[in-house]
């Protein structure tokens, strides 16, 4: 696969065949560097204990466990990365071939030599004192329960193999390499999503499928893995054939017609201004979301309810960080206010405030209190900027937790014992939402998510939304344009706080108890990672971020799909954040605005600049520019 950057014209498929390079004509320093990085990475993964912890979980029944996979994926990624070359205009695009396979193989061989050294190291030295995982168990996995020398020899060999595959992905046509990657990911997904798939098949009464797919140790069985792979290849080939067929063009043409029929008549209400096709999609999505929980089992509903709680939190924080540009590291405070307000007001177990009031009444009080908390926290911090502001919000987030924990207020909040016995939600005598009925909780969460999405969407496109974005871009100029920056920023805090309190209020009713340690600083950080990962200032992105991160890894106190990862959750959150900041600062789903900013416009602008420069040169004849002014 050739990285062509923004200039697809250099693909050169129809021109003369691209020149080849000799097998040993390698970029040696780059290979060495990548190999060294890989070695450090592999040793780090091994010593972090992942192989040992994950070894219990089988992915493909007799042959592959999650533990071994944790040592296999990095060589593949790094060897693929080594073979990437950006071909810009004016550069020679070399043909891919055996040289790339060799490059990948050598990089990964070098990297896994690090593991071989580790095997030898563990047998000869004992530094288990600082490094807890420098253990016989790790050694056992690294030497395949055989001998040291087998381990020391086989890891570089495995590296060479995976590396050759990684490098070979460049050689293969883009279709084949894409199919390979998707097949690998699907098999991995099918294996890892075992619990959800089992849950789904139970919902649809086709348990036989999941019984056939998964073996006794929860991994895909050998034949099932092959069937999944073949099925994916089949679907992809079918899709490709469909894309190439003329029928699709007709459909697309009709779709275009529908899309433009919406028009931009500003007198109609906002939802009517949407293009028809988008409206249809929206209705279908909403219908699917409403119906789906009926077919899901407890586990999946529970999982989705947790995801929903974090969607609420992330949408709230998105208003503060994404729209108004205020880096709030203490957002958990509002989550806590919501949770504890409902707990104190509804639970018979709370030390003060009897008689208890119903959940909806408590929610109203929680919103008010969270709004007030937003004002109290916001008022002193909005006059600060940047780092100082972030540090102060960090402090406020902790203050709330410490107050909840304190002896001073234990008469109300019960200190470290927390408040238990919180009743469920009575929905106007129609239904009761309780934690042990995850489906009802999910519906409650969905209603509030819908409210939050609508509110965020309307705010983003409103006057105050524009004011927030202007403040995010340049606060003092926004002020000079007549924006009341103080009240706009307070408004962002209050709105974000109220959305966060929804989440806390539902959490109380769902779990039935609240404790100060449920509202630790890590919650703030996870929410922030969700927002950044999804794409700041972008509603679909934030939702996708919550689904992916909370759904798969789990929240700070909530299990995700990969329960094995629980110990490594925070490590992965941190690594993801670093990677996002370096590689994809615009987020998982960049907002249209940001994508445009980061890519297409650069291209347009570059093209325009080049034309300008050419014109200037022609005009000035290369003479001195702009001189000779009186």
């Amino acid at each position, binding site marked *: 696969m050739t990285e062509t950057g923004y200039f697809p014209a250099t693909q050169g498929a129809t021109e003369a065949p691209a020149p080849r390079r000799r097998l040993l004509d390698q970029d040696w320093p780059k290979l060495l560097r990548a190999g060294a990085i890989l070695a450090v990475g592999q040793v780090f993964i091994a010593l972090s204990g992942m192989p040992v912890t994950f070894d219990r979980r089988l992915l493909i029944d007799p042959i592959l466990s999650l533990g071994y996979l944790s040592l296999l994926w990095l060589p593949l990624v790094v060897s693929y990365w080594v073979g990437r070359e950006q071909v810009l205009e004016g550069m020679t695009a070399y043909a891919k071939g055996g040289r790339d396979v060799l490059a990948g193989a050598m990089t990964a061989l070098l990297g896994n030599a690090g593991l071989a050294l580790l095997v030898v190291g563990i047998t000869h030295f004992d530094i288990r004192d600082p490094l807890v995982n420098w253990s016989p168990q790790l050694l056992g996995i690294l030497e395949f329960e055989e001998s040291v020398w087998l381990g020391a020899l086989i890891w570089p060999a495995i590296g060479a193999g995976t590396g050759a595959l990684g490098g070979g992905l460049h050689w293969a046509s883009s279709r084949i390499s894409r199919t390979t990657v998707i097949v690998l990911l699907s098999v991995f997904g099918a294996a890892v999503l075992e619990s959800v798939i089992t849950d789904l098949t139970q919902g649809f009464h086709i348990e036989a499928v999941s019984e056939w797919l998964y073996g006794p140790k929860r991994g895909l069985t050998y034949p099932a893995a092959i069937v999944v792979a073949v099925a994916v290849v089949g679907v992809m080939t079918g899709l490709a054939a469909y894309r190439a067929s003329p029928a699709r063009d007709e459909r697309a043409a009709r779709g275009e017609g529908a899309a433009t029929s919406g028009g931009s008549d500003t007198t109609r209400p906002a939802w009517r201004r949407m293009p028809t096709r988008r409206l249809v999609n929206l209705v279908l999505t909403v219908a699917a979301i409403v119906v789906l929980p009926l077919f899901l089992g407890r586990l999946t509903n529970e999982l989705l309810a947790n995801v929903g709680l974090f969607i609420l939190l992330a949408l709230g924080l998105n208003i503060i960080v994404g729209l108004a540009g205020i880096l709030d590291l203490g957002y958990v405070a509002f989550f806590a206010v919501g949770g504890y307000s409902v707990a104190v007001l509804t639970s018979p177990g709370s030390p003060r405030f009897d008689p208890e009031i119903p959940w909806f009444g408590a929610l109203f009080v929680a919103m008010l209190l969270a709004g007030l908390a937003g004002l109290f926290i916001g008022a002193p911090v909005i006059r600060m900027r940047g780092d100082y502001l972030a540090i102060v919000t960090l402090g406020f987030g902790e203050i709330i937790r410490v107050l909840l924990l304190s002896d001073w207020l234990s008469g109300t909040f019960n200190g470290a014992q927390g408040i238990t016995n919180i009743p469920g939600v009575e929905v106007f005598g129609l239904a009761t939402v309780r934690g042990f009925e995850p489906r009802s909780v999910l519906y409650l969460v969905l209603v509030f998510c819908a409210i939050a999405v609508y509110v965020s969407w309307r705010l983003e496109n409103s006057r105050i939304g524009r004011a927030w974005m202007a403040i995010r871009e340049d606060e003092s100029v926004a002020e*000079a*344009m*007549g924006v009341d920056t103080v009240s706009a920023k307070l408004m962002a805090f209050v709105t974000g706080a109220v959305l966060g309190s929804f989440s806390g209020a539902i959490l109380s009713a769902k779990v039935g108890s609240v404790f100060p340690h449920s509202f630790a600083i890590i919650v703030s950080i996870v929410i922030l990672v969700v927002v950044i990962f999804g794409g700041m200032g972008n509603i679909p992105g934030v939702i996708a971020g919550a689904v992916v991160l909370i759904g798969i890894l789990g929240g700070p106190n909530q299990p995700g799909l990969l329960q094995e990862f629980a110990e490594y959750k925070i490590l992965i959150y941190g690594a993801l954040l670093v990677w996002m900041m370096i590689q994809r600062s615009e987020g998982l789903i960049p907002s249209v*605005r940001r994508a445009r900013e980061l890519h297409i*416009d650069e291209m347009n*602008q570059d093209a325009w600049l080049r034309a300008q420069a050419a014109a200037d040169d022609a005009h000035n004849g290369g003479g001195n520019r702009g001189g000779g002014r*009186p």
Partner: protein
Amino acid sequence: MSSDTPDMKTSAPAAEQEASAHAEPVLELRAVNTHYGAVHILKDVDLAIYSGELVCLLGGNASGKSTTLRTILGMVKPTTGDVVLNGQVVTNQSTRERVALGVTMVPENRRLFKRLTVGENLEMGAFLRSDADGTAADREWVFELFPRVKERLNQKAGTLSGGEQQMVAIGRALMARPQILLMDEPSMGLAPALVQQNFALIQQIHSAGVTIFMVEQNANMALSIADRGWVLQTGRVVLSDSADNLLAHPDLQASYLGTAEDERG
């Protein structure tokens, strides 16, 4: 916009008010003193700007030029003295209220909202206006003045070239339909060729009927297009005269312009 201002322009491109009698200044500073903490920045500054004028305030670094603008906009409060807009004392009013009364600034170095589109930048200029028709008319007027802005309407402001950004910055300010336009160092941070282009833009909008108060270090450049000017030295107005007289003034040439000329080659 307030409705009690005496001679509010009905249509922005109204150039015919150029010579309207010097009845009452659009903007007036009356014996203004401004402090930052204990530091005395502005010392008894008196300024008066009349409708249709293009005037400039000259001064070197740290002479108090930017503080003057901040005082006018209400971002700092004067210790003593008054800021008067169209006869109304606004000393105790907020920036927001002053912007609503018709004073707008083009900040130094353009300072566009870089990640918003050009169109959204223009909208922000009209943030306090609620008259959709008038806003749309002014938008068309800005496009008429700067056709290139219209071409780049959906582009991120941060991706424009320096000259285009300057047009958007001026356009954004014009969207407020200001009674008086404040310009903070329009020559700052621009290549020499662009400085000239920029001053041409200023002349252009001035001849379209906009009253302009410009704060500038580049005295030669500013005085070549201004009607009148003041020279500020360490917070005190030391000279006040017509542009031609100022250019010919020996003190100015000897001290201030001399050094400016050296610095700028």
